C-alpha cells in the first residue's frame, strides 16, 4: 500500500483552477519527484498533503489516514511524522541556526540539553553548517538557509519528507552533497521522500519515480528512464527544456498580440 494516496484531487484558488482530477501514489521508501512548470501548483500540492489547504473535491490519504478528516490533534500528530522543507526555508528569524534546528526537539521532546546538542550538531554536520550554528538566519545566504531548513526538517526523524525545490540556489558542490544526502537519508533511515523540483537532471538522478504536472493534471508519470524515452511532445519539451512546444511558458490569459493592440481591453 502506498504511503500517500491522492485520488481525484480538485483544488482552485478563486477562479483559477489549480488541480482537476489528480491521482498520485507515493510509495514507501522511495524518492518520488514531482516536476512541472512554474506555477502549476507543486507547492500547493505539498500544502494539501500537509493539511494546510483543503481540497475542493477528492481525498488525500497519508499512511491510511484521510488528512482532511483528521481532528486538530490527529493532524498535528500526523505532521510530527512529516518533514517539510519550505521553498523559502521558513526559518524562525529570531532564533540562531542551532536553535532553529533544535526547535522541533524542544517542542516535542523532553530530551536533556546534551542530547539535543548532539542531535543538532549531527544534523548540521550532515548539511555542512555545523560551524555556522551561532549565525542568525539573516546572516545566511539563501542556499545556506535552505540547508539549515533541511537539517531542521529531519531532526524529528520523520517517516517522510517533502522537499520543495531543495536544489535551487545551491552551488554545484552543495548541490552534489544535497543530492547525496537526500539519497542517503532515504536509504539509511528508510524515509519516503517527495522532491519537488525544476532541475530535471538532479531530480531524475535521485528519483525512483517521477510525476509531471501541468494544467491541473498529471501529464505523465513513470521511472526517469521511461520519461526520458517518452515519445510525448510535452514530456520531451519539458525534460529537454526546449522553448517551443506544447508547454505554455506564459500565465494563461489574453493573447499577446491582442493585448498590445487593444490597450483599453485590460489596463
Amino acid at each position, binding site marked *: 500500500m502506498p504511503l500517500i494516496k491522492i485520488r481525484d484531487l480538485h483544488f482552485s484558488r478563486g477562479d483559477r483552477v489549480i488541480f482537476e482530477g489528480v491521482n498520485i501514489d507515493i510509495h514507501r521508501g522511495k524518492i518520488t519527484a514531482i516536476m512541472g512548470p512554474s506555477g502549476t501548483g507543486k507547492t500547493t500540492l505539498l500544502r494539501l498533503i500537509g493539511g494546510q489547504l483543503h481540497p475542493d473535491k477528492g481525498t488525500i490519504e497519508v499512511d491510511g489516514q484521510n488528512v482532511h478528516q483528521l481532528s486538530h490533534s490527529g493532524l498535528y500528530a500526523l505532521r510530527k511524522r512529516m518533514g517539510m522543507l*519550505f521553498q523559502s526555508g521558513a526559518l524562525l*528569524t529570531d532564533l540562531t541556526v542551532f536553535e532553529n534546528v533544535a*526547535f522541533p526537539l524542544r*517542542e516535542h521532546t523532553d530530551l536533556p540539553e546534551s542530547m539535543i546538542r548532539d542531535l543538532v550538531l549531527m544534523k548540521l554536520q550532515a548539511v555542512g553548517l555545523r560551524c555556522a550554528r551561532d549565525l542568525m538566519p539573516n546572516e545566511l545566504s539563501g542556499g545556506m538557509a535552505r540547508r539549515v531548513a533541511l537539517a531542521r526538517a529531519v531532526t524529528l526523524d520523520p517517516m517522510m519528507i517533502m522537499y520543495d525545490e531543495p536544489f535551487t540556489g545551491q552551488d554545484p558542490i552543495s548541490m552534489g552533497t544535497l543530492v547525496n544526502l537526500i539519497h542517503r537519508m532515504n536509504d539509511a533511515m528508510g524515509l519516503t521522500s517527495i522532491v519537488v523540483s525544476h532541475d530535471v537532471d538532479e531530480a531524475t538522478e535521485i528519483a525512483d519515480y517521477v510525476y509531471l504536472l501541468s494544467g491541473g493534471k498529471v501529464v505523465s508519470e513513470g521511472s526517469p528512464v521511461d520519461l526520458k524515452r517518452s515519445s510525448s511532445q510535452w514530456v520531451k519539451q519539458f525534460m529537454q527544456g526546449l522553448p517551443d512546444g506544447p508547454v505554455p511558458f506564459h500565465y494563461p490569459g489574453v493573447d499577446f498580440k491582442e493585448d498590445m493592440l487593444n490597450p483599453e481591453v485590460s489596463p
Partner: protein
Amino acid sequence: MIGIIRSLGRWGLSTFERLGRGHLFLVQILAGIPGLFLRFSLVIQQLFSVGVLSVLIIAVSGLFVGMVLSLQGYYVLVDFGAEESLGVMVSLSLVRELGPVVSALLFAGRAGSALTAEVGLMKSTEQLSGMEMMAVDPMRRVIAPRFLAGFISMPLLAAMFSAVGIIGAFLVGHGLLGVDDGAFWSQMQAKTDWYDDILNGVIKSIVFGFVVTWIALYEGYDALPTSEGVGRATTRTVVHSAFAILGLDFVLTALMFGEG
C-alpha cells in the same frame, strides 16, 4: 447608484466576516492559554518585549502628563483658594481616566504596532506555516503567549503611569507652585476611594489591555502576507485600538460612575 449600494453591501459583508473571524481567533487564543502555564518561560519572554520595553515611554509620558495636570489644575483651583485639593484632583483624573486611557493609547502605539508587525512578518515569511508543518500550533506557541503578556502588562503599565504622574504632579505642585505637601497627600488619601476609583481604573486598564492585544494580534495574523499588507495592518492596529479604547472608555465610565 447601484454601484454604491453594491460596494456598501460588500464592505458590510467583509466587515462582518472579519469581525466573525476575529472572534473565532479570540476563542482559539483562549483555548491556547491553559497550556501556557506549563511553559511560562514563553510568556516571560513576551512580558519583556511587550511590557518591560514599554516602561520607558509610559513612565516619561506619565511624568509629563502629571506635571501638566498639576500646573493646569493649580491655576483653576487657586482662584477658589482650593489649591490644597490639587492632590485629589490629580490623583482622581489619573487613576480614573488618564492612567488607563493614555497608557492604553501609548501601549497600542508602542507594543500593539510591534506585535502586529512581528506576527505579520512571521506570516509573510512563512514562519507560521513552517511551525504548523513542524506540528507546532502557532496559535499556542506564538499568539497565546503574546496575548497573555499584553493582558498582564497593561494594568501594570497603567498603574505605573498613574504613580509616576502623581509624583510629577507633586514635584510641580509642591516644588514649583508651593502647595503644602501635607495637604496634597492627606487630601489625596482621604478622597481617593479604593473601590470606586482605583479598582474601576484597574478594570478599565484590564479591558483595554485585552482589547488592544487582541486587535494587534488579529491584525498581524490576518495581514496580507506582503510588505504593504503588514504596513497597513500595523496602521489599522493603532487606529482601531484608539477607537476601541476611547469608545470603551465612554461605555465603562458610564457604567461605573454613572449611578454614583
